[in-house]
């Protein structure tokens, strides 16, 4: 379930401690990240059964929607994870792999994807999972009445999907069930093929099934509030829901109809634990695992707790700066660059990038879990991240030189525009913890050092809703640079975030070269991974040079695992079957 969503997140998710880090001159040392093991290897033999106790770290109650098609937040997917399973297994790079609940076959020339369900794939009531269940899942997401937030542009590539989504058609013409509704095969016909289709979470098809026989009489608009979804969901995953206490806990028992090896534990409980209580909860050895967001600031204490081994995985959270370079034309539904914008001079943008001292900020305040991001493709995507691209390390001298060359001369304390007018740059940032504020203050200080008069929009960081309302307006002159973050999915195509018609290209950066490079990344030729890698590298090089978006920071997500847990790994190849594989080596949690 970790590969479900991309969401815009606040900087709080990324940032850590307090105070501003300041230093002059060039960046002397790069930040050394701690290397955490991806898996916890427990050589002891497993006991039979036992209940796995999971803490979901969160300061708010979860919402209680068991169906991933209808859930709109990560908390629900965390607390219901033991019973939810993707239709497809995947490898360590999130590429689909056969052998899971269903097999996946892509035919480029026929422009189809064929999904074949296992013969022994059954719901937890013993009824078989059918082709109709897969087809209906697409309807639940795409129906015009649906409350689902999962419908995507990628999904509209299915033939007939636009018509269905608009309510003009009652069925999705591009979905076939060659063996009938009760068969095991579903064929999806696409308008065009994209290499991203091979990866989980890319959104081209909805990768789950819905128990049609259970929910067919409930209007899709009312599905999320139905008892079938809230209290008695059917599952084809390793566990089935036993009980849910609204907003606070869930418990599961093995699904006796599970298609794979029988789960090794006899139950799982997931309990919400607040961020202020999680450290003590772990010190008391109340839980085996944690899911959800453990605060980075607690890492130094949590890593020392006896009885636990801290594992880690590259974070999909990614902080970045964006420059306001144009507007979104609502008539043509395309971004348009505007040369009169304050930040349209590339040297000004590059200078601002060189002035930031992200290495020092991450080093001093990241607890070893955060580092400067170098390109717009985070290191999480090991296949496509360009390691040779060092981005913009601190270089005040170069920043000053670039500004001088571009004609931004100093008059008194601040630099002026090349035509001699005062230059005030408005920085939009989100309100967060004291640490986040300190980091944002540090960026201002660094820019001030090179003579740029950068100020917060309205003189202070903004509340999240106001921030995104401003950014998503088709046109705004209130901000010149902003700091935000993405939570990446498992397919890194830049089309939806930096493309010409991408509405989330909130800096409105558009060039023919950028469009060409992005199109190459998503072209049929890019089904060849080595070709795609080259295109990704070219795009990262180009985007670094253009500096329309500046990568800020990325890091490591850590998770403590109690020493009685066996078979735990953060390897994405095991995510889909993790809960079935986890075993315990003693009846009570380990204290050493």
């Amino acid at each position, binding site marked *: 379930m970790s590969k479900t*969503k*991309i*969401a*815009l997140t*606040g900087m709080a998710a990324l940032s850590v401690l307090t105070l501003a880090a300041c230093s002059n001159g060039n960046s002397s040392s790069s930040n050394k990240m701690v290397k955490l093991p991806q898996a916890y290897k427990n050589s002891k033999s497993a006991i039979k059964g036992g209940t796995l106790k999971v803490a979901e770290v*969160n*300061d*708010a*109650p979860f*919402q*209680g*929607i068991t169906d991933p098609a209808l859930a*709109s*937040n990560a908390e629900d997917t965390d607390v219901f994870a033991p019973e939810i399973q993707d239709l497809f297994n995947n490898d360590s790079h999130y590429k689909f792999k056969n052998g899971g609940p269903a097999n996946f076959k892509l035919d480029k020339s026929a422009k189809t994807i064929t999904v074949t369900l296992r013969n022994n794939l059954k719901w937890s009531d013993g009824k078989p999972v059918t082709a109709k269940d897969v087809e209906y899942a697409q309807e639940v997401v795409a129906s*015009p*009445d649906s*409350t689902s*937030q999962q*419908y*995507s*542009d*990628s999904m509209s590539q299915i033939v007939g999907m636009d018509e269905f989504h608009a309510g003009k058609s009652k069925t999705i013409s591009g979905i076939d069930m060659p063996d009938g509704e009760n068969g095991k095969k579903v064929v999806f016909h696409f308008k065009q093929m994209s290499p991203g289709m091979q990866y989980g979470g*890319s*959104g081209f098809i909805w990768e789950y099934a819905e128990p049609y026989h259970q929910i067919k009489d409930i209007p899709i608009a009312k599905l*999320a*509030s139905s008892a079938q979804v*809230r209290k008695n969901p059917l599952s084809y995953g390793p566990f089935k829901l036993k*009980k849910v*206490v*609204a*907003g*606070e*806990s*869930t*418990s599961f028992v093995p699904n006796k109809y599970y298609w794979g090896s029988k789960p090794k534990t006899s139950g799982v*409980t997931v*309990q*919400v*634990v*607040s961020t*202020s*209580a999680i450290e*003590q*909860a772990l*010190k*008391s050895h*109340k839980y085996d695992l944690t899911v959800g967001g453990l605060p980075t600031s607690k890492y130094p204490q949590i890593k020392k707790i006896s009885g636990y081994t801290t594992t880690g995985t590259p974070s999909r959270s990614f902080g970045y700066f964006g420059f306001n370079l144009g507007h979104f034309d609502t008539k043509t539904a395309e971004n348009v660059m505007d040369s009169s914008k304050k930040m349209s001079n590339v040297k000004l943008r590059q200078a601002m990038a060189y002035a930031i001292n992200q290495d020092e900020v991450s080093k001093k305040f990241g607890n070893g879990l955060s580092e400067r991001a170098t390109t717009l493709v985070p290191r999480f995507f090991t296949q496509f991240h360009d390691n040779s691209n060092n981005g913009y390390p601190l270089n005040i001298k170069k920043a000053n030189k670039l500004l001088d060359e571009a004609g931004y001369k100093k008059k008194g304390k601040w630099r002026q525009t090349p035509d001699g007018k005062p230059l005030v740059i408005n920085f939009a940032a989100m309100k967060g913890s004291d640490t986040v504020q300190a980091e944002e203050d540090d960026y201002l200080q660094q820019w001030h050092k090179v003579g740029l008069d950068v100020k917060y929009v309205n003189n202070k960081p903004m509340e*999240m*809703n*106001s921030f*995104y*309302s401003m950014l*998503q307006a088709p046109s705004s002159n209130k901000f010149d640079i902003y700091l935000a973050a*993405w939570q990446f*999915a498992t397919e890194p195509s830049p089309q*939806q*975030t930096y493309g010409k018609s*991408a*509405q*989330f290209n909130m800096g409105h950066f558009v060039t023919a070269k950028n469009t060409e490079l992005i199109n190459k990344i998503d072209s049929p030729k890019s089904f060849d991974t080595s070709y795609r890698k080259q295109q990704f590298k070219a795009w990262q090089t180009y985007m670094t040079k253009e500096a329309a978006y500046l990568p800020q920071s990325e890091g490591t997500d850590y998770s403590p695992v109690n020493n009685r847990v066996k078979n735990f790994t953060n390897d994405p190849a095991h995510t889909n079957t993790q809960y079935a594989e986890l075993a315990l080596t003693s009846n009570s949690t380990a204290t050493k």
Partner: protein
Amino acid sequence: MWKTILRRLLIIIPEIIALSILVFLLAKAMPGDPFTGSINPHASLAHIHHLMRINGLYDPWYQQYWNWVVHLFHGNLGMSYEYQEPVTRIVGERAINTLWLAVFATVMTYAIGLPVGLYAGRHQNSRSDHAIRIYTYVTLSVPFFVVLVLGLWIFGYMLGWFPTTGSINTNAAPGMGSVISRIQHIVLPGLLQAFFSLTGIVQYLRSEVIDATHSDYVRTARSKGVPVRDVFRHHIFRNSLLPITATAGYAITGLLGGSVFTETIFSYPGMGLLFVSAINYRDYTVITALVLLFGFLNMLGTLLSDIIMAAVDPRIRIE
């Protein structure tokens, strides 16, 4: 008196209407919408607009308000955008949790606070009085969340006397099992809340008792030879309790308010957290319902306080 109470109840109706319009407008004036910030870059903004449209969020405010009023008269407060279920159901679930905790905490606050305050006042400057005063100064100066975290750490995790999270054990048996589990879960947060809240009552009561001890009617009673014990029991205590009684109505109706700190630290899903998250997520239907509920309870609290005052103090009459 009954006429007055009825009149006061009727006045609440226009007040509620005015409050509902105000809340509705203010909620809509907040930047953002229920879908801001939860955007999925694979989703198109067109889909977000679609969701806004099917939820009626692009309708003019008066139309949205009218739709809301019509639904209200059908006992329907709308659907929560965040929870995707009827507002009445969510508020109902949370209100029950909050009531369990708040009733216990309030009862404990008064059960401990009243005798302690009276005792401290009666034995002014004794060692016990000094100890009680030190306690009240400490609790006044320490932030509430610190008390909660410390209490949870010591009694929940270190000593293991109480459950540490939630309102009920996930595997509690139905019937009496779940009732016992609920009680176990409210004892620690309820007591911590009570020990923190009783400070005000103790200080207030203590000073009231001390003031009353030096008043004319007490001097008269003492000079007439009434035993000290009776003077305290029949004159001082009764009069000292009047200001506390004056706020009893608010205390009763305030039970549903919830406490954000307690609910967050103990992961206890109650009304306080529901209200905060509704504001953060721009869950308009929940915001409106809760503000109206709190507003109504506040008005009711004022009336109740007046009625209680009239009942306990013969000198006061509602006219």
